[in-house]
């Protein structure tokens, strides 16, 4: 057991050196095959005879469609005082420090953005993007193009500070890619919607990876994006995912988001949130705004939220969710399970089903565990029995809620009215949230509120 690790002898060092050389060679190869978009700006465009006819101002790519790596469709070239468009098929050679055209003559067409096209320098470089794999909002410090199959494509975005420094330096540095912190373009959700000829907004297909994100992660992204990008991200999310993310946002940020969104859209989002979270969001709004949002909701939802709003924030009524699964004694376990399947969108609010009598009064709270281990053809009446669940009335203080929840030893607590009708359920995680209101996610205070 006392064997020492071998000392780094000559062979180890040699091996290391070879490995290092290999890496450097690879890096060099990568560098040489990449073209830096920031470096390309201002570079000369020459015709076949080598005469300079202008300089590059922008790179146009087409990014509608399923391509992970958008192909370059052309260049914007400044010729004298005009901005001309050069289709990419007229380009013979695109190096990092010059562009050579195929023909001696250049057909000068004024640049006009076509449908589905995006100008990289004006619309993407230095703008915000979402790195879906790393779940971060980034700003593009540089963009890299590389030949893929037969075309030149946008392959990566550089987010390193070195690239910023490089761009500040002399032109010689600017063209040299520094691919140290590069994000694969396939992992990027870009913004800045390409417009159609009539100025109509064309939504790109959302990045598939967005679906895998947790609501809290999407909330972080929404908080970090500028307004336009945030509205765009919100519009490409599934409505359900958007509502889940909103539940996780900081009250202040959520308030601003609801404020800047058109009322109909804000109402739609709030209506899809879990009732207790929706009520919290509505509480933050001014009365007139609240009424307006409620007015845009389906009457049933609005009424339910209005009733919850009557309870003060820090009472049981203010903490509870009204998404309940009510079943009767004679239903079978299989039928209840089917019912649960249909209530999928409220899954985060359900940890038990409530058994009620014919008058709708509480008999027992049956946990999902009990349901899971029960035989499918068993009746609910077989599952009920002591101990009876601890319940609380809607006006109870948050302190009483904590005590009752501890006593109940479950993950939630039922709220019932005086006659024993179940009104709602208080989930342990909401109690935790209310106990640590501002410390839940440690953020710096923003500008003075």
């Amino acid at each position, binding site marked *: 057991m006392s064997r020492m690790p071998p000392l780094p002898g000559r062979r180890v060092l040699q091996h290391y050196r070879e490995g290092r050389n290999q890496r450097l060679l690879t890096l060099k190869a990568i560098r040489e095959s990449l073209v830096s978009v*920031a470096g390309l700006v201002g570079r000369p465009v020459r015709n076949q005879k080598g005469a300079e006819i202008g300089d590059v101002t922008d790179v146009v790519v087409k990014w509608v469609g399923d391509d992970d790596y958008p192909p370059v469709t052309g260049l914007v070239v400044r010729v004298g005082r005009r901005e001309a468009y050069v289709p990419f098929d007229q380009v013979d050679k695109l190096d990092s420090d010059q562009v050579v055209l195929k023909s001696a003559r250049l057909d000068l067409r004024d640049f006009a953005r076509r449908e589905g096209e995006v100008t990289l320098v004006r619309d993407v470089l*230095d*703008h*915000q993007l979402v790195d879906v794999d790393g779940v*971060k*909002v*980034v*700003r*593009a*410090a540089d963009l890299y193009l590389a030949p893929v199959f037969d075309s030149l494509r946008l392959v990566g975005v550089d*987010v390193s*500070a070195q690239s*910023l420094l490089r*761009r*500040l330096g002399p032109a010689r540095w600017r063209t040299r890619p520094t691919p140290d912190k590069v994000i694969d373009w396939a992992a990027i959700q870009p913004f800045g919607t390409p417009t159609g000829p009539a100025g109509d907004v064309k939504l790109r297909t959302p990045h598939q990876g967005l679906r895998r994100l947790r609501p809290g992660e999407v909330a*972080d992204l929404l*908080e*970090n994006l*500028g*307004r*336009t990008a*945030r509205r765009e991200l919100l519009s490409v999310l599934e409505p359900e995912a958007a509502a889940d993310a909103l539940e996780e946002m*900081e009250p202040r*940020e959520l*308030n*601003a*988001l*609801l*404020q*800047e969104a*058109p*009322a*109909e859209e804000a109402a739609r989002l709030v209506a899809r949130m879990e009732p207790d979270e929706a009520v919290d969001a509505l509480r933050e709004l*001014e*009365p*007139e*705004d609240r*009424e*307006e949002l409620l007015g845009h909701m389906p009457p049933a939802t609005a009424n339910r939220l209005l009733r919850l709003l009557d309870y003060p924030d820090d009472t049981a009524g203010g903490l509870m969710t009204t998404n309940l699964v009510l079943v009767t004694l004679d239903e079978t376990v299989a039928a209840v399970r089917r019912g649960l399947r249909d209530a999928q969108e409220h899954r985060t609010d359900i940890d038990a089903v409530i058994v009620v009598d014919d008058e709708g009064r509480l008999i027992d709270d049956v946990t999902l565990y009990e349901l899971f281990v029960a035989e499918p053809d068993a009746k609910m009446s077989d599952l009920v029995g002591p101990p009876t669940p601890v319940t609380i009335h809607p006006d109870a203080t948050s302190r009483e809620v904590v005590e009752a929840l501890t006593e109940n030893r479950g993950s939630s607590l039922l709220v019932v009215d005086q006659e024993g009708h179940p009104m709602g359920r208080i989930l342990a995680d909401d109690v935790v949230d209310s106990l640590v209101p*501002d*410390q839940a*996610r*440690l*953020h*710096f*205070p*923003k*500008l*003075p*509120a």
Partner: protein
Amino acid sequence: MASTNTSPERTADRLTGSPRRQHRGRRLRRYLLVLGPGLIAANAGNDAGGIVTYASAGAQFRYRVLFLMVLITLALVIVQEMAARLGAYTGQGLMSLIREEFSLRVATFAVVCLIVANVGLVVAEFAGIGAALELFGVSRYLSVPAAAVVIWGSVVFGSYRYAERIFLLLSLVFFAYPIAAVLAHPDWHMVISQTFLPHFTATRAFLLLSVALVGTTITPYMQLYQAAAVADKGIGPDEYRMARADTIAGSIFSNVIAASIIVATGAAIGGSGPLTSAKQAAQALKPVAGAAAEKLFGIGLLGASALAAAVVPLSTAYALAEAIGAERSVSRKFSEAPLFLGLFTAQVALGAALALKPGNLVNLLIGTQVLNGLITPIVLAFILILANRRSLLGEAVNGPVFRAVAFLCVCAVGALSLVVFGQTLLGWFGIA
């Protein structure tokens, strides 16, 4: 705005008379009238540097700078309105806009200017804390480092919200100035004539003080704050009219307070030459507080300085982190937000360290405002260029008349700064 578009799907939230707009209007009006971003932003000008500069102006030239204050107010309204409009129509902060709209080199130049101006401000705030506590007999070599530690700690460890309220409350003392100005029975005839008739003196001292007045009233920080606050509150084109009213009212209000500081100080110690100590400046509050004037002044100065000493580095760090590409909502762990925390810490440390420079605190305070004044025209030029861009603001772009007036303002401020900058340079080489 009041379009006559009658297509049904647009009517709902585009038309002026829709219930939505009315509701929002009422809500915002109530909110903005209480504490709008415009009011807060403009009153950021009445911080330590502002109070001392206004007091010095009153002490040195009595009411002679009041006419200048009218011009500065006009410029302030124009600039703050542009900043608010950029915030409302783009939903972005100024730093972020500058990064996106200008080439990286130009953007870097703007950012460096802003950092220099803001570090200057932080120095002024810590100097203000030092000067305030000296009135209570505490050495600044003790008070300034202690204040830096307390402010840094309360922001990083999270009890800042409470500290902020206390500071804000303390700084309300300065609302005693308008009362003091009236009770001091100034020569109203002279006050009014010097407000509305130009009275310039072509001396070096007057020019230097003019730049300090410009720098302290139109601080680059205020435009940064204005745009960010409007954007962060979700105020969009629909609600912009209200935000504009708030911005204009806030700018005028803050300058009325500034003018009352000048009048009160001018009436109390006018003509006694440049201000040399906080004790002297406190004399202006005598009509209100009598013998307690010094203590009252000290309390107000402490509150105003401490408030800004945390807010300025914090919001500068936010803006910079955003422009560079780091997160906007930053967590408190150093490992997760090294850039943001580093920027914040560096500003506080540098500001406090420079405020310990031996010499007269009042001179240091006014010096930082001159520095701000030299940088102001550069930042104004950036804002003007942004607000002139139709590609950015669409219909809300500067109109031809506005553009001309704003251009004149920037030129005037720029010319003033250039003259003082040139004089200072020549002074360094011993020529002038």
